[in-house]
């Protein structure tokens, strides 16, 4: 990597960190501007409420990727989501179940569930089996999570993690079971498959908005606003780069 790329990466990281700190501490920024209304999250809240009322279970899937891999951000978002969703739905007869395709994610999901039980002062009800590894390869993971739908009476699925297009088979199984599915993944292949099969698919960076929309804490909202700042910065840089490139080809000489 060249020096300019290092400087660019560092600068981008610093701007992100400063924006996060600013939006986290600034009362004005926190109070100003509500999140735009998204139908997917309204339906998710309704589905969680119905699950609790009907005594059905909520299933949170954290994907089949390792936490050490480069595509682990969605799993980290999934863990924050799991804790928040567990806090909301612990009052139901059937506590939520979390599945993953990686050992370290399974341990972290148990940890997140335990934290949710602790914050609700119901630690004695915590069952470590509710956070489990369902398989070790993408297809074995799929084979492990499909039977959970009928056997554990799941009525709402929240898929937040890294998948391949094979996740479409799970969405179809959920559809046949009459279970609601909200799904988000950072994998492009999975996003395309989920768009065709999930009830509510989230595309691109919408994945990172889940904890903020579930009111997991002000820092998640601050993070969303920081993402917007960075996105505008990228848009500006891309447009400026395109104009410079065009100008160079018109003038026939390098400008920078």
């Amino acid at each position, binding site marked *: 990597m060249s020096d300019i790329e*290092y400087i660019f*990466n*560092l600068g981008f*990281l610093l701007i*992100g*960190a400063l924006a*996060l*700190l600013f939006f*986290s501490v600034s009362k004005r920024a926190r109070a100003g501007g509500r999140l735009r209304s998204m139908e997917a999250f309204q339906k998710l809240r309704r589905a969680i409420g119905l699950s609790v009322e009907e005594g059905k279970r909520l299933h949170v899937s954290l994907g089949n990727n*390792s*936490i*050490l891999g480069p595509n682990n*951000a969605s799993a*980290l*978002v999934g*863990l*924050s989501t799991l*804790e928040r969703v567990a806090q909301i739905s612990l009052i139901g007869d059937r506590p939520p179940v979390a599945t993953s395709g*990686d*050992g*370290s*994610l*399974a*341990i*972290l999901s148990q*940890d*997140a569930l*335990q934290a949710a039980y*602790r914050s609700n002062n119901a630690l004695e009800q915590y069952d470590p*089996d509710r956070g*489990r*590894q*369902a*398989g*070790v390869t993408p*297809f074995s993971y*799929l084979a492990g999570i499909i*039977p959970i739908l009928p*056997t554990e009476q799941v009525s709402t699925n929240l898929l937040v993690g890294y998948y391949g*297009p094979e996740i*479409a*088979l799970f969405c*179809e199984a959920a559809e046949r079971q009459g279970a609601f599915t909200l799904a988000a993944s*950072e994998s492009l292949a999975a996003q395309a498959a989920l768009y*065709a*099969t999930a009830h509510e698919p989230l*595309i*691109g*960076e919408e*994945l*990172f908005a889940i*904890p903020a929309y579930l009111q997991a804490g002000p*820092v*998640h909202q601050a*993070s969303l606003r*920081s*993402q917007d700042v*960075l*996105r505008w910065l*990228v848009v500006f840089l891309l447009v400026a780069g395109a104009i410079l490139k065009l100008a160079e080809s018109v003038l026939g000489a390098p400008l920078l």
Partner: protein
Amino acid sequence: MKMRSPVVAAVTIAVGLIVLLGYFLPSLLVQNLRALLINWGVSLAGVAALIGILNLLAVHWRKANDKGNRNFYSLLLLLAFSVTFAAGMWLTPADPGFQHVITSIQIPVETSLMALLAITLGYAGLRLLQRRKGIMGILFVIGAIVFILFSSGFLPVLQQLPLVGGVASLVNRLPVAGARGILLGVAIGSMMTGLRIFLGADRPYNG
């Protein structure tokens, strides 16, 4: 409500800082420290994988022994695991005969699932216009059909035609542009997720 331990957060931040500094600073000390921490992480992930498999077996053991609702498939899983584990220990995973038997079971099963996936996605594509009645649903279906046709092999023929060639190349580049746009958003989101954890503002771990 119990407060989360600040020590765990401090350790996380310190480790994150060292790994991040190792990315930007050429100092040998920081580089060595970064490599050491990453190696520890990899070793811990190996142990976690073992714990994950034990967790998988424990869950299926309980399902297989549930007298009220005994699960036959869990019993089958435990049996298959025991046989594979014993054979792997006896013959070693590098044994060609052992590998042949395992792949002869695994590949046909996964291929069948892939075939099922192709049919499922085709059917979902047909149903999509029913489910998503907006402009996005229509665009998605048109896009899928157009790019299936483009990738089916007649694009090079089109590209040789005088006026159509340019348009075909432009259309063929559209998915790349769209994918880059989505990936840029995902990259920014991933960076902010990392920063939240790095700054201790978000803790997807207990402690």
